[in-house]
């Protein structure tokens, strides 16, 4: 027989071992403040960028702000104009001294692992391609504005069908692939419409420049070695935006390398013009870059940068706490643990993600006539759809307690979101929406119930789709909260857990979103980009959420005018429609967040308005600087 004392002793020893092992954490310091301030050289660079863009802010910790859901303060930005402001001399190269060492970053493995920007989304490209090569237009890391990069200046003609970019003449491709010239641009652009391309901009570029490489090469022309001209088939006011990294896939590759080695070798060891040099990649394991000591814009402080691809979040956190990496992508729910281990949560300079519910079935009545000829043989517009009634949409908006969602799910970091697609700092925003938001959208379950009764749709059947997208794991609990809110006002809600890919295939691509509501998230970008996907009836407007036939007219006016006043007015009018007719259910604007080891990282600032959790890694300074 076993003596009880032996069992007790064994159990005690085991508990003691675990206790000793876990106890170390209690002595860790709790640091929630921002890392050390910028070094002098860095400050000068920051000032230069801020002067160019007119604004800026420092990285800050991710501590929750009790004044959450306050309206956003407008941040000045450079916008697309016919004669854009960046016509000054190129940004001076920022001299930095390498401090050696490796910058190791634990990241979520991207869905598409690529070196060719045409083989994936802008998110994938910004994470993996942007370090080693640049787009034509750079993005200021403090205010997100478009600033000179490879292109020193640019301008559009009167009707926005011709854009001309002046390029730097002092940029060399990595390796021995010679200087970067205008002749590399058409080649790089042609990759985006390759047969195997699945880039975010593939459809857009086909529409703007043609379906074939031949056609594209006639529309994107090198006027001389350092002047490139884009001739668009339809007017577009956002070509400089698409030539940047915020939305675009137009990163620069070497024409000489492509012609000498072919596309496969170009992908295996691409020569770029970025601040980091691509070294090697092991699928699902890591991506290694080395420092470009002679970059025209900024040479990194670190000798090399390595992305360590780790799917499990707890593992990424453990890598950070043991200092095996200096930066990690950690979701909000683990931020408290991270801070408890002495790590710092940093936020992007600008809001990064907008979160909302999309009300399904709100299709443009003018599409009714096109129903029979639609390729899916579906009639998008159905007159008996409850969601076509503005009172129902208002009731849904009134039923949801945004402050509670922000407090309980987002830890209070969310900021007020008034109209889906619009941010106060971007063109087309109407300050009236901020002023009237509480009156028109404020939480009022009683009023919501009454509105539903007045609409005649009390107790209608609603399918709440519980789905999520990367970057906002709270989408599912947000949907669960909405279930309660909407049930409380008398809607007969049924929930359906569905993966986003299936939601796309089953509901919104074939135009069958009638009687549904689903959470979604989008990025911080000019409103017309978001509206193009969500609110426009045809073309890329696959969501087709349109509360008024004027939507398409105003959208076309906004996107086809390079006059900033006309464009902003059209966007504002369209936003007014969306706001007054309760087009969607805007919830919050969120910053992008990243966890860093303050003992290793000094300063890190990134705009957050780019489709990746963090960018601008060349500006990261070590704590010792």
């Amino acid at each position, binding site marked *: 027989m076993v003596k009880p004392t032996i069992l007790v002793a064994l159990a005690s020893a085991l508990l003691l071992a675990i206790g000793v092992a876990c106890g170390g954490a209690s002595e860790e310091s709790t640091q929630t403040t921002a890392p050390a301030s910028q070094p002098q050289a860095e400050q000068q660079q920051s000032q230069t960028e801020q002067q160019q863009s007119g604004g800026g802010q420092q990285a800050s910790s991710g501590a929750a702000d009790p004044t959450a859901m306050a309206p956003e303060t407008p941040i000045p930005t450079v916008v697309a104009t016919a004669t854009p402001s960046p016509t000054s001399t190129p940004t001076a190269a920022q001299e930095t001294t390498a401090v050696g060492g490796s910058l190791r970053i634990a990241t979520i493995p991207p869905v598409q692992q690529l070196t060719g920007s045409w083989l994936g989304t802008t998110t994938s490209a910004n994470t993996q391609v942007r370090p080693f090569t640049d787009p034509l237009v750079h993005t200021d890391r403090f205010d997100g504005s478009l600033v000179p990069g490879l292109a020193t200046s640019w301008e559009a003609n009167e009707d926005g069908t011709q854009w001309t970019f002046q390029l730097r003449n002092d940029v060399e491709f990595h390796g021995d692939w010679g200087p970067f010239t205008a002749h590399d641009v058409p080649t790089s652009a042609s990759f985006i419409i390759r047969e195997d391309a699945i880039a975010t901009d593939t459809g857009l570029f086909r529409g703007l420049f043609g379906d074939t490489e031949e056609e594209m090469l006639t529309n994107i022309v090198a006027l001389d070695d350092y002047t490139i001209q884009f001739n668009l088939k339809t007017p577009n006011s956002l070509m400089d935006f698409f030539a940047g990294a915020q939305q675009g896939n137009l990163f620069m590759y070497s024409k000489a390398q492509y012609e000498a080695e072919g596309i496969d070798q170009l992908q295996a060891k691409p020569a770029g013009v970025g601040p980091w040099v691509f070294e090697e990649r092991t699928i699902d394991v890591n991506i290694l870059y080395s420092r470009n000591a002679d970059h025209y814009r900024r040479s990194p402080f670190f000798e090399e940068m390595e992305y*360590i691809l780790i799917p499990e979040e707890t593992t990424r956190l*453990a890598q950070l706490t043991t200092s095996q990496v200096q930066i990690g992508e950690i979701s909000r729910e683990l931020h408290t643990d991270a801070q408890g281990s002495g790590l710092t949560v940093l936020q992007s300079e600008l809001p990064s993600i907008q979160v909302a519910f999309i009300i399904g079935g709100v299709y443009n009545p003018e599409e009714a006539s096109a129903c029979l000829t639609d390729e899916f043989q579906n009639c998008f517009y159905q007159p008996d759809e409850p969601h076509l009634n503005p009172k129902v949409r208002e009731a849904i908006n009134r039923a949801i307690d945004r402050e509670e969602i922000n407090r309980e799910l987002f830890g209070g970091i969310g900021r007020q979101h008034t109209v889906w697609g619009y941010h106060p700092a971007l063109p087309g925003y109407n300050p009236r929406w901020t002023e009237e938001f509480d009156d028109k959208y404020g939480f009022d379950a009683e009023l919501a119930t009454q509105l539903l009764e007045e609409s005649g749709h009390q107790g209608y059947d609603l399918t709440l789709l519980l789905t999520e997208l990367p970057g906002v794991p709270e989408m599912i609990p947000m949907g669960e909260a909405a279930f309660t809110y909407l049930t409380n006002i008398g809607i007969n809600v049924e929930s359906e857990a569905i993966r986003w890919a299936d939601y796309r295939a089953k509901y919104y691509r074939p135009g069958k979103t009638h009687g549904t509501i689903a959470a979604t998230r989008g990025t911080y970008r000019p409103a017309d980009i978001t509206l193009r996907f969500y609110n426009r009836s045809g073309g890329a407007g696959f969501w087709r959420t349109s509360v008024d036939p004027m939507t398409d007219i105003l959208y076309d006016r906004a996107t086809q005018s390079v006059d900033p006043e006309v464009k902003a007015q059209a966007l504002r009018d369209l936003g007014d429609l969306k706001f007054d007719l309760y087009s969607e259910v805007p919830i919050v604007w969120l910053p992008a967040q990243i966890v860093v080891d303050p003992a290793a990282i000094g300063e890190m600032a990134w705009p957050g308005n780019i489709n990746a959790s963090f960018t601008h890694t060349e500006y990261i300074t070590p704590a010792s600087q």
Partner: protein
Amino acid sequence: MQRYIIFRVGQSILTLLVLTVIVFSLARLSGDPLDVLLPLEATNEDAERLRAAWGLDRPVHIQYFTFLGNALTGDFGDSLRVRGRTAISLVLERLPNTAALAGVAVVVAILIAVPIGVLSAVKKDSVFDYVGKVIALFGQSLPAFWLGLMLMWVFAAQLGWFPVSGKEHGALSYILPAIAIGWFQVAALMRLVRSSMLDVLDTEYVKLARIKGVAEWKVIWKHCLRNAAIAPFTYFALIIGSLMVGSVSIEFVFAWPGVGRLAVDAAVTKDFPVVQAVVITFCLVYIVANLLVDIAYAYVDPRIRYS
């Protein structure tokens, strides 16, 4: 014997054939890879263009026979997720990592299970036996991924004795994931050793050895264990296959660049060619392991004959 081997090989080929149908069908039933891989903003035209380029617009039975014909030559097609790479090249690149981890896990399982199993039998109803039972209980009930996370948090994150993840730290990198994978097998192997040992300990020749004054350690470790090893040996050979298959969650937790993690990533992104290549490779490993065990069984135990 020869006839038996031919029969078993034929059985294995038939099994693989049926398997290709199941794997192919399940992969297609899981949905359209374009829904995962295409950007949110992709148009229907983009989707149709790629569907045609990837051959996904052809009738399913045509796709299957194309897949089968190519698979016979080891060609499972190009990965949809990792462009420019064939599915089989990704699998073969990872297979050594998974096999190495499974091998270490087997060693770990044996090193823990055999001594405790023997002690539990020899010291039946003693503290060793009870400790063995507790270990068996934990081994069977603790999910491998949870155990992996706990091991990582205690021994890597807090104590710093081992690296957190990856395999770039050499031998040390293997310890925690191998324990997490092997732990589940420890329980079964230990109980098997214990029961086999109990049977052998009660035999006449063991009693005779003791009467003749053979040292006790020699009786147990040489005479008893050798004879008691047949059943565990069979099981041991089988678990090599299951250890490789069971590495899926652990490779995910420890960011181990093996086939298991490749399978998860491929399944999530509906990368059909890679999913098919992984599953068929795993099954091939399992079938071959079974076949070898059956054949080896006859050699290990001369009493066994096949007809």
